């Protein structure tokens, strides 16, 4: 189980509070689909994913990115309880969505890159380390109910 120090929690929530979840979600999901094109396999119904600009401008990508990152926000509010928080979503990703858990790690790292891109110097090595713990915790929690 992941344990967060008080400093880590403070760093994570402070940065999160300054973030535009809608924009960041769209950016993160978009970049996932651009940088790791094989992840597009889950999004056949999303329409035009033919180029980076098409992907990043795609309204379905933006909407879904917002959904995903809003859910991530639940993680931030429940950092000590990730497995319980994501139990239902874990079952969904296994049984209905059939997503290889490797993809959770990919998205987590893309999100970290997007945060670095957005916050620049403020995204210090210490803040990054805290966020790496969060994304790893979320990835594990989402894989936890797989069978």
């Amino acid at each position, binding site marked *: 189980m992941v344990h967060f120090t008080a400093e880590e929690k403070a760093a994570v929530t402070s940065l999160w509070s300054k973030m535009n979840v809608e924009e960041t979600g769209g950016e993160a999901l978009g*970049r996932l689909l651009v940088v790791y094109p094989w992840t597009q396999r889950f999004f056949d119904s999303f329409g035009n994913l033919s180029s*980076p600009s098409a992907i990043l401008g795609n309204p379905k990508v933006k909407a879904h990115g917002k959904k995903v990152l809003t859910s991530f926000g639940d993680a931030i509010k429940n950092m000590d309880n990730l497995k319980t928080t994501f139990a239902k979503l874990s079952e969904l990703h296994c049984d209905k969505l059939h997503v290889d858990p490797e993809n959770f790690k990919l998205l987590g790292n893309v999100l*970290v890159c997007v945060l670095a*891109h957005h916050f620049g110097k403020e995204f210090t090595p*210490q803040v990054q*380390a805290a966020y790496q713990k969060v994304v790893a915790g979320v990835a594990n929690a989402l894989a936890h109910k797989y069978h």
Partner: protein
Amino acid sequence: MSLTKTERTLIVSMWAKISTQADTIGTETLERLFLSYPQTKTYFPHFDLHPGSAQLHAHGSKVVAAVGDAAKNIDNIGAALSKLSELHAYVLRVDPVNFKLLSHCLLVTLAARFPADFTAEAHAAWDKFLSVVSSVLTEKYR
């Protein structure tokens, strides 16, 4: 996996900017690596890894210089990094998983320092380029 012409152009042009800050980028990348992935410190028991350490600075420079060599010889990375590839295979024997961790930390450093240049296309090109570099460095492992 090989780099397209567009990707090579993106890498080379960004490298021109990176090279002016090469040393600090190297140091920051390693700092990020050791903080986010403490297990990577096991390869450096002989180093002082505190921020500001001269050894950290020197090693960071070395690492980024090697990335630069790959960028400057982007049409033949295998030849450019051949000696380094042997070093990693026979002497250093760093577990291959760590190349992904270091690559990620370098990407994060670039994203933080070059916001205007770190577009989605550049992100993809650099991720792919570093993946190629990592493959070259592990290709003689067995």
